[in-house]
């Protein structure tokens, strides 16, 4: 246990010069392939890593502390800044946790819109993952192609909520807007074309000698390791464990749509690459089923719960009591019941969990963000050992870590 105070600061006791053949390399925190501010202290035995110590915290903004000092609605835009590649997934996780805390049922149309946005975010995140990962490994072409398609998902999201990076496109109790005119047509165009694009990527990569040499049997995570280190999402399914929260603990309308949970049993980076490709196809499949479901819903998009959720704008502007309630909810904030919830959702990176302890105040007493990347970075200290230095970049890229949610 370190004992630190103002007079005795703690310094790492790392010997960068050693007598034997071992060398210590500081990887990051400003390394383009670290996908953020990741510092890795690598002990090398020749070309092989004999010890890896990830060092994080360079992007720490104290989101949990911020959450304790904000009303629930105020905190929602902050969640955008966690996994900024798929911001809606974070917004949604938080909104769902608060809804569970209150015990709120969201209108069906809002559910459909949320699912559409979530799946678009998943596609966007996976495309980003593929692009940057391929670029790290040396495949420039894929980077350009995948970013082109990602642009279409961002355009769709922008059409809906006006933002491309920090969406805030979900509200506690529903969604802020209905789908704009012509949005469904654009979505249709996009999802009809995406499977062809995915086939293109696979044509470029699947049998590519360099790609296979760089990924096959690299970054092996055994099922035991994956469970013990708390892996989730593609990192877990890449180890042969079929666990998808959308399937096992369905939220929204995931129990009404048909989709498969792809699993890879090879446990290596190549298997996880195939998994991401298949997941995008499944997302397209879900989106295709959602379009007819949307047409059948009634137009409400926000839950009716006057104690917690503001009334629709027209009502606020015409009815005095709604205006008063809106004023109280904006200035003081909602007061959820006393209790606690832990709500996990399947974000593109894995299990995104929100633990909220409410004491009946407008501010949560404790809010813990469970970010999947945090645990996927922790496992690096075990899976990097024995790998070559050149593969470190491939493994970090493959783990799909985003520092916004690791450091929070």
């Amino acid at each position, binding site marked *: 246990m370190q004992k630190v105070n103002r007079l005795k600061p703690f310094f790492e006791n790392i010997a960068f010069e050693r007598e034997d053949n071992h060398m210590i390399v500081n990887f990051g925190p400003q390394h383009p392939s670290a996908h953020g501010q990741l510092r890795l202290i690598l002990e090398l035995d020749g070309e092989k890593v004999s010890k890896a110590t990830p060092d994080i915290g360079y992007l720490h903004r104290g989101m949990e502390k911020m959450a304790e000092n904000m009303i629930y609605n105020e905190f929602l835009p902050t969640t955008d800044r966690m996994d900024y590649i798929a911001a809606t997934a974070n917004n949604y996780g938080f909104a769902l946790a608060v809804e569970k805390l209150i015990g709120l049922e969201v209108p069906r149309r809002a559910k459909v819109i949320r699912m559409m946005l979530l799946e678009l975010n998943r596609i966007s995140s996976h495309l980003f993952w593929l692009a940057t990962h391929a670029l790290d490994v040396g495949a420039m072409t894929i980077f350009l192609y995948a970013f082109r398609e990602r642009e279409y998902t961002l355009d769709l999201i922008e059409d809906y909520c006006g933002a491309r990076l920090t969406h805030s496109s979900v509200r506690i109790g529903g969604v802020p807007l209905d789908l704009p005119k012509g949005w469904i047509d654009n979505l249709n165009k996009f999802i009809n074309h995406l499977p062809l694009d995915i086939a293109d990527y696979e044509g470029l990569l699947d049998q590519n000698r360099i790609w296979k040499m760089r990924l096959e049997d690299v970054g092996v995570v055994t099922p035991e390791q994956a469970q013990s*280190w708390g892996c989730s999402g593609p990192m877990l399914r890449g180890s042969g464990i079929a666990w998808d929260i959308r399937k096992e603990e369905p939220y929204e309308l995931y129990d009404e749509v048909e989709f498969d949970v792809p699993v890879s049993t090879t446990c290596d980076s190549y298997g996880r690459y195939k998994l991401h490709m298949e997941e995008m196809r499944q997302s397209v499949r879900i989106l295709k089923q959602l379009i007819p479901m949307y047409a059948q819903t009634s137009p409400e998009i926000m839950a009716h719960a006057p104690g917690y959720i503001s009334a629709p704008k027209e009502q606020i502007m015409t009815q005095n009591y709604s205006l008063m309630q809106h004023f109280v909810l904006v200035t003081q904030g909602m007061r959820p019941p006393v209790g606690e919830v832990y709500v996990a959702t399947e974000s593109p990176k894995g299990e995104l969990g929100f633990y909220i302890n409410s004491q009946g*105040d407008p501010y949560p007493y404790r809010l813990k963000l469970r970010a999947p990347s945090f645990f996927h970075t922790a496992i690096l200290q075990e899976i990097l050992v024995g790998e070559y230095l050149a593969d470190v970049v491939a493994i970090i890229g493959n783990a799909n870590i985003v520092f916004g949610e690791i450091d929070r």
Partner: protein
Amino acid sequence: MMRSYSDKQNVQKKAYYNDRYFVAPQIPKEDVETDEIFANDVAVLKGKFEIKEAYIQRGQLVIYIDARDNVSVLQTLRDELSYNFLSEHSAIDWLAKSGEFEIFYQLLSSSKCKRLRVKCFIKEKEVLKSVIGVYKSADWAEREMYDMFGVIISGHPYMKRILMPDDWYDHPLRKTYPLHGDEVAQWYEIDKIFGKEYRDIIGPEERDSARVDERDTYRFARLNHEVPFGAEPSSEKTVTDYQEEGGVFIVKKLKKEDAKIVKERY
């Protein structure tokens, strides 16, 4: 005048208005017997350990145990009751209320598709045993908990701050941790390096890069009231007539006041 009382144990933001008749509702706690799987889990644990309280809230089992049993309880849950994931592990600060931390372990069983929360209380200086031998995901979770709350863990191989810098003072998620720096923190460098008497000369640190100070004539100029660089600002209007020597070509004498603005282009 009396100074208004403020709770030093909890300096976090509070609601500025409380309706004194408002009683916050409780999320219902269901009996463990309502769920077959959870009832079995609790029965197995009760045979071995002291279970202080057990209930189901929002579909998840919550059990309170003795903090000294934490490793063996989790070991039992993993090996016998197939809770194979530790999803999350952290603490809640109740130091102001009872001088305790509430520790929670959020577990998941992928085969039973059930989530369970194991909770225990420890005193502020009490040592908690590390559960890294049972779940490796506790490695960083425990480091973060130490970093954020100062919960002391024994048996961890690399107990070191994880998010904050190594030489950071205090633990940020405690309720006693201030939300803003105080006067000492604000002037810390100037007091240390130059001395207190230099506070006026150097001035406070300006963190807002978009700040405009109209008294600052080093960096800003007031339109129509320009003064030389660094001079005292004045309210006198500056002359804006053309000041080229010998006047402007063709224009003999330009008077701004006489200028006319035409309504239409000729």
